[in-house]
C-alpha cells in the first residue's frame, strides 16, 4: 500500500473513531436502549474519574507554579556551575507576524524590554510576510525604535509563494530561523549556546521568563533534547474582553496547566522555546502544516529516537484573548481558533507515518504516544456532545416515554452527581483563575469582579457549543481530505 493511501487512512482514523462513538451511542439507543444507557453510565463514570484526575493535576500544577513564583531565577543562573556558562547563553526571541498592528508588537517588545534579563543577551527577530505590504516599513520602524535596548534586532520578510510551503506561522518562522543561523555563523556564535523562543506577536513574556528558561537550559544535562514550554496565560486584555471569551481562554490556560503535570507527555504548544542547535538539526519548523508548534516537538522526538521531552517552565507568557467586534464575532473567532488548535490532530498522521518507518523507538513508547494523541483528540471531539446533548436526550426520552426501568432513573441520578461535582470544579476554577488576574486598570470599575464570578455560569453553554464542535469539525474535514487555511487569529484589542 503506498504512502499516500496510508496517509489518507490515518487522516480518517481520529474522525471516524469520534463519529463512531457518537453514532454508535445513538444507534445502540434505538436497538438496545438498556445497553446504551449502561454504556453511557460507564462513560460518565470514566468522566468523573478523569475529571477528578484533571482536578488533582490542576491543583498540583497551580501549587508548583505558585510555590516557585518568588524564585530569584537570575541569581540562580549566575550561581549555577555547569559546562555552559550563564554569560555564554544567547536568547533569540522570534516574533513571526502577519498583518499585526504596530501597537500589538510594541506591547510585546516593551514587555521583553522590561524583562530582568541582560538585554545584551537578547537578539530579537521580527519576521514579516511579503504578502503583508506594510510589514517591511512597520518592522523596520520598530527595529529603529527598539534597537538600543537589545543585542540586535533582525527583520526578515518571508517571500510569498515558495513551492512546498503553505502560508503559515511555521513557514515564516523557518525562513527567519535560517536567516538567524546565517547571522550566528557570521558572528561566530555557537549554535549550542543559543536558545530560540518562537512567540506569537501578542506574547508578553513574564519578567523572569528568560532567566527561568536559562536556568533550566543550563542545569539540564539533556538541554538539546528538551523543549521548554511556558504556561500561556491569556490576560493581556482580560478587563476588556467579553465574559464568554475570558472563560474560554482561561479554560485553555487550565488545560495547559493540567498538561504540564503529565510529565513525559507534554508537547509544545503555541509560544515555546528550544535549543537552536536542535532546531537546525531537525530541519526547523514544518512549512506545510498548520500545527507547527506541536509538530516541531515530534520532529525532535523522532530525531532523538524518542529521547526528547518538553519541560513545563514555572514562569508564564501573557497573551491576548481573541475577541471580535461584537459577541457573535467573538464566538466566530473563538470557534475558528479552537478549530485551528484542534487541527493538531494532523500530528497523529505525522507521528504514525513516521513511527511506521522508525525502528529505533520501542513499540511501547510508540503505542503510548499514539494512544495519547488519539485519546486527547477523540475525547476533545466527543465529551461535550455526549455530556451536554446525548445524556440529557437519553434522560428526557426516558421521562417522556415513562420508561420506568431503573437504569434510566439511575442515569439521571448519576448525571445529577456529575452536575454537582461540576459546581465544585467551577468554584475551584474561579479560585485558581484569581491568580492569573493582572492589576485592575484605574479606569475599569470594581463591578467587573462581579462579572468575573458570574462568568463561570457560562461554562456549560461554552463547553456544549465550543467544547467539542470545533474539534469534530477539524477531524471531519480531515476525513474528507480537506485542508485548513491558516487563519490568523485576530488580536490587538486595545489594552488599557
Amino acid at each position: 500500500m503506498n504512502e499516500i493511501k496510508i496517509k489518507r487512512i490515518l487522516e480518517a482514523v481520529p474522525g471516524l473513531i469520534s463519529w463512531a462513538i457518537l453514532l454508535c451511542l445513538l444507534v445502540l439507543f434505538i436497538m438496545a436502549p438498556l445497553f446504551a444507557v449502561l454504556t453511557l453510565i460507564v462513560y460518565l463514570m470514566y468522566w468523573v474519574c478523569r475529571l477528578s484526575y484533571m482536578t488533582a493535576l490542576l491543583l498540583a500544577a497551580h501549587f508548583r507554579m505558585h510555590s516557585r513564583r518568588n524564585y530569584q531565577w537570575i541569581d540562580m543562573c549566575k550561581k549555577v556551575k555547569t559546562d555552559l556558562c550563564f554569560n555564554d547563553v544567547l536568547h533569540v526571541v522570534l516574533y513571526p507576524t502577519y498583518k499585526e498592528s504596530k501597537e500589538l508588537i510594541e506591547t510585546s517588545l516593551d514587555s521583553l524590554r522590561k524583562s530582568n534579563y541582560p538585554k545584551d543577551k537578547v537578539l530579537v527577530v521580527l519576521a514579516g510576510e511579503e504578502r503583508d505590504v506594510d510589514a517591511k516599513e512597520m518592522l523596520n520602524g520598530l527595529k529603529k525604535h527598539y534597537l538600543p535596548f537589545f543585542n540586535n534586532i533582525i527583520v526578515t520578510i518571508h517571500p510569498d509563494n515558495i513551492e512546498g510551503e503553505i502560508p503559515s506561522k511555521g513557514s515564516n518562522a523557518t525562513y527567519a530561523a535560517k536567516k538567524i543561523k546565517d547571522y550566528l555563523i557570521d558572528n561566530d556564535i555557537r549554535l549550542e549556546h543559543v536558545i530560540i523562543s518562537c512567540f506569537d506577536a501578542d506574547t508578553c513574556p513574564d519578567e523572569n521568563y528568560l532567566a527561568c528558561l536559562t536556568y533550566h537550559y543550563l542545569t539540564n544535562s539533556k538541554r538539546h533534547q528538551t523543549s521548554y514550554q511556558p504556561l500561556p496565560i491569556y490576560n493581556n486584555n482580560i478587563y476588556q474582553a467579553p465574559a464568554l471569551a475570558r472563560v474560554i481562554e482561561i479554560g485553555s490556560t487550565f488545560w495547559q496547566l493540567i498538561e504540564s503535570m503529565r510529565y513525559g507527555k507534554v508537547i509544545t504548544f503555541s509560544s515555546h522555546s528550544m535549543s537552536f542547535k536542535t532546531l537546525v538539526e531537525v530541519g526547523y519548523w514544518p512549512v506545510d502544516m498548520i500545527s507547527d508548534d506541536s509538530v516541531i516537538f515530534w520532529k525532535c522526538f523522532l530525531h532523538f529516537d524518542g529521547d526528547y521531552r518538553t519541560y513545563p517552565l514555572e514562569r508564564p507568557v501573557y497573551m491576548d484573548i481573541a475577541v471580535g467586534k461584537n459577541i457573535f464575532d467573538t464566538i466566530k473567532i473563538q470557534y475558528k481558533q479552537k478549530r485551528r488548535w484542534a487541527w493538531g490532530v494532523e500530528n497523529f498522521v505525522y507521528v504514525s507515518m513516521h513511527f511506521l518507518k522508525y525502528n529505533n523507538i520501542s513499540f511501547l513508547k510508540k503505542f503510548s504516544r499514539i494512544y495519547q494523541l488519539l485519546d486527547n483528540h477523540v475525547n476533545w471531539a466527543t465529551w461535550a456532545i455526549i455530556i451536554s446533548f446525548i445524556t440529557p436526550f437519553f434522560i428526557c426520552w426516558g421521562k417522556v416515554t415513562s420508561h420506568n426501568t431503573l437504569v434510566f432513573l439511575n442515569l439521571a441520578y448519576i448525571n445529577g452527581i456529575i452536575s454537582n461535582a461540576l459546581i465544585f470544579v467551577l468554584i475551584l476554577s474561579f479560585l485558581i483563575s484569581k491568580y492569573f488576574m493582572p492589576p485592575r486598570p484605574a479606569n475599569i470599575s470594581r463591578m467587573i469582579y462581579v462579572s468575573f464570578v458570574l462568568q463561570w455560569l457560562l461554562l456549560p453553554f461554552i463547553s456544549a457549543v465550543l467544547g467539542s464542535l470545533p474539534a469534530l469539525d477539524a477531524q471531519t474535514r480531515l476525513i474528507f481530505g480537506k485542508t485548513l487555511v491558516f487563519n490568523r487569529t485576530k488580536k490587538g484589542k486595545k489594552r488599557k
Partner: protein
Amino acid sequence: MKNLSDRGYQVSQIVFFWIISLAFLVFTPIIVLFSLGYTFDGEANTFIKTGVISMETQPGKAQIYVDGNKLPDTTPYLLRGVLPKAQSIVFEKKGYFTYKTLVTVKPGMVTDINVALVPDSEIYEQKSLPFDLYAYFTTKSIMEEKLICLTDKGIILCDSKFAVEKVITPQVMSEVTARSIKHMIYSGDKLILWNDKQIWVSSVEEENQADVTVISKVYETENNIKHVFLGLKKRYLMIQDDKEVKAIDIKNYSILYPIAKLETNDGEIYYDEDSDELYLYERDVQSSERTLKIKNLGTNFYAKLQELTYERDQNKKNP
C-alpha cells in the same frame, strides 16, 4: 505539596493516575450493578436484583411505613434496594386518613406510587366571610380558578380561598332565587346565570354618570332549561330546553329565534363554535333509532336572520 521537586510532582502525578484508575476499575462495575438494581445479599451470599419504589403524596411530608418499618424521611421519597416481592406501604400524616396499599416491586424497575391523601373530616378550619353566601360557582381565568359568589351583598368575584377581588354587581338576588341557580357562564364582561326555568344576564348601564352592572332576567319558560351556551360568534345566547333550541340576541333580548325543534325531550346537542354547526343526537319518533342531525347555522342562519329582521322592521313601519 508546596515545595516538592519536579521528581516529587512526577511521582504525585503517577500516584494520582493509579489511584484514580483503580477507583474507576473498582467502582464502575459496582455502579453498573447498582444501576441495574443489583444488591449484595450478605445472608444468601449472592447478588439479588432489586427494584425501586418512588413515593409521592399530595400533600407531601407524609410519614412512610414499609412492611411496618418506619422510613427516616417523609414523602416524596425514593426507596432503593427493594426486594422483588409484595410490600405493604402506609402513608400517615396528621389531619389526613392513613393510606395503605400493597405493591409488588419488579426487579430492575421503578414502581411509582402517587397518592392523594384525604383530609380527616373532623378537622375544619373556620373561616369568616364578609357576606352571607347563597351560592357559588367556579370559573377559570388564565392562571387560576376564581369563584363567582351570589351573596347578600351582591354578586362578588373571589379567589379560590373566598378572598374578595371585586364586586361584579351590588344588585342582590333573593336567597331563594340565588340558591335555585344551577349553572353559570362568566366570560369577563358577561355573566349568565340560569336555573330550570329562567335565565339572567348581566349588562352595564349608566347610573348617575357611572357604569353599573345590573342582572336582568332575559328569558323564562315553562319547559325545563337543559343547556345554555354562547353561539354564532358569541353574539347569541343559545338555549336548549325539552322541546327546542332557541337563540337570543345578547344585545337585544327581545329578539328570539327558533333554531331547532327536538322531537323527544332526551335529545342531546353539541355545538361547534368554529364552524357554527349544531349537532342533534336524538331518538327518531317513528323508528325509535338514535340519529345524529347536523344543522349548519353559519350562512343559512345569518340569511334567515336578515330575512326575519327585515320582516320585523317592515312590520314596525307598517303596523
